[in-house]
């Protein structure tokens, strides 16, 4: 009997294929939007995790401020000093490299070319910590680092923008305030998870950065690489203890800096995409709800339109329950079809979007099943009222209906 009802519902739906399709458009769009959002959100998280794990498991980043908030949260906390960097390198056995890192946006000029890029003040340890090789030229001489010479190592993009195909080594770049001799070019790394170009950068010795750009002695963050085989956790807690002592933090007082390993960096970055995904999915969810109301609306219209048919069915001997079931099943079948099409469309859009954004295609099957069940639920909720209305019609009135 139930299979029969479903068959009849399908027949009724197909008899009015165009209207049926328009009816479920809302559900299709809602479900597709949810699935697309979740797929792309998960894909970007996966991509971020993969990118960050490429940084190496032995990388630690030390930043001002407690916790993992956005960088601005650390503004009020005191910055580090070059002495801190030296102390970490000298006093903690598991540390392979420790580099200061200050960044600023600077416009570089070469000939007629003009290019705004990120200048990082650091030293050679930065190359070790970031696992970054020199493609052309050389790294800093230690005299250049200690003397704060204005020499530059260009990222691949900065080089291309300023020099095109030409050889930049030994050429001199200018900025508004100083000029800078190019000594090398970094290997290309490609785009990071946020589509930000990591190669659009220029490195210079930290002391040169302080004198020429920042104008103070502050170090805003420190990149540390643990020795292969050394426990990152141990290194982390050693750094924590050392910095607490150097920054004179009383026992019981909270850290005013944070030491993050790659896993924590990843979760900090993905939490941003997580919030985005959540928000967008909520919007998509609202459109699902609107889709459900659309179904109710059309089902009500359909009940009115089919009043005579309902009258015939009642006269022939359909019970109230049979009519109720018929219309309810019709609404459920309709929205399930909508759900299925939406899931299909969402997966396709998710796939296309992932390809376009160069992130892994990562559909969430749990959400897919939930979307499917939810569309059935929408059918029940928004189909019930019109169905009950149909079932309760007075057969005589219904038969007289034009």
């Amino acid at each position, binding site marked *: *009997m139930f299979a029969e009802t479903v068959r*009849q519902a399908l027949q009724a739906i197909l*008899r009015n294929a165009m209207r049926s399709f328009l009816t479920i458009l809302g559900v299709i769009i809602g479900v597709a939007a949810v699935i697309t959002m979740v797929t792309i959100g998960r894909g970007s998280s996966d991509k971020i995790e993969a990118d960050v794990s490429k940084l190496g498991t032995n990388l630690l980043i030390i930043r001002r401020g407690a916790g993992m908030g956005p960088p601005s949260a650390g503004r009020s906390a005191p910055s580090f000093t070059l002495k801190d960097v030296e102390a970490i390198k000298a006093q903690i056995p598991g540390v392979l490299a420790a580099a200061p890192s200050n960044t600023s946006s600077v416009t570089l000029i070469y000939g007629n070319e003009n290019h705004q890029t990120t200048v990082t003040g650091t030293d050679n340890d930065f190359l070790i910590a970031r696992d970054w090789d020199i493609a052309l030229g050389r790294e800093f001489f230690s005299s250049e680092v200690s003397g704060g010479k204005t020499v530059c190592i260009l990222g691949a993009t900065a080089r291309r923008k300023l020099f095109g195909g030409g050889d930049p080594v030994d050429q001199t770049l200018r900025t508004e305030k100083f000029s800078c001799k190019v000594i090398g070019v970094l290997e290309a790394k490609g785009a990071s998870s946020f589509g930000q170009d990591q190669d659009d950068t220029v490195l210079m010795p930290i002391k040169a950065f302080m004198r020429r750009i920042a104008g103070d002695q502050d170090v805003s963050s420190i990149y540390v690489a643990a020795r292969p085989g050394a426990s990152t956790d141990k290194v982390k807690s050693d750094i924590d203890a050392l910095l607490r002592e150097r920054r004179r933090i009383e026992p019981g007082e909270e850290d005013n800096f944070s030491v993050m390993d790659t896993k924590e960096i990843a979760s900090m970055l993905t939490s941003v995409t997580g919030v985005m995904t959540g928000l967008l999915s909520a919007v998509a969810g609202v459109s699902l709800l609107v889709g459900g109301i659309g179904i109710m609306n059309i089902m009500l219209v359909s009940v009115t339109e089919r009043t005579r048919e309902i009258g015939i069915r009642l*006269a*022939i*001997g*359909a019970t109230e329950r049979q009519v109720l079931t018929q219309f309810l099943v019709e609404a459920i079948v309709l929205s399930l079809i909508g759900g299925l099409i939406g899931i299909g469309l969402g997966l396709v859009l998710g796939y296309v979007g992932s390809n376009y954004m160069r992130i892994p295609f990562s559909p969430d099957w749990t959400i897919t099943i939930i979307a499917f069940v939810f569309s059935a639920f929408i059918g029940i909720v928004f189909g019930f009222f019109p169905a009950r209305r149909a079932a309760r019609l007075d*057969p005589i009135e219904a038969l007289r209906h034009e």
Partner: protein
Amino acid sequence: MSEDVQAPVIALRDVSRVYGEGEAAVRALRGVDLTIGRGEFVAIMGPSGSGKSTAMNIIGALDTPTGGSYRFLGADVGGFDRNQRALLRRDYLGFVFQGFNLLARTPAVENVELPLIYKGVGRAERRERAINTLKRVGLGHRLDKEPSQLSGGEQQRVAIARAIASEPEVLLADEPTGNLDTARSVEIMKLISRLNDEEGLTVIMVTHEPDMAEYAKRIVQFKDGLIEADAPNDTIRKPDMEQPDVR
């Protein structure tokens, strides 16, 4: 429903039906007594507004009387709830309407299957019974046609097939020929009287046309919500007398 085989199929006692209340109340039926036995063929006639359709709706358990009693095979229909009335219609009654009332865009055979679906008859048996019934009304060659592809007379025959597919006790027809020309009307009346003659189907039919009432075995005259006359039809027409058989 517990049926009493001895009881008349239909027994209306002092049945009244009032629409609305107070000043605006319309007394469509004002105390109707009507007993119809198995195998009868009754034509209900009378002027417009005399209460014929109201009486048919009550007999058909589509409506309930506001006074009096209605027994169907001895069972008191007045005490039935909506669901029981639906089951009475499903299991004992077949309806034919003036406007055919077939489901649009639905093949003839599926229209005829409809009451069997609600009865829970399995798919294969249902189809077979629907086809057989359509053959009985002479539409064996029109099974897959939708109402819009059928003539008025053919549509009404599909409707009759639908009404009798579930082998009801009584066929109720409210002006079954009202929308048809004379030739089609005669065709339909012959079909109905054949079902009455050959299969013993009880038929109650409302008609305005004396020519059509002639096919019935008993004629009941309504006037102002009352039965004015109720007599056997003494000039019963034999189905094959003058008109050529259209089947």
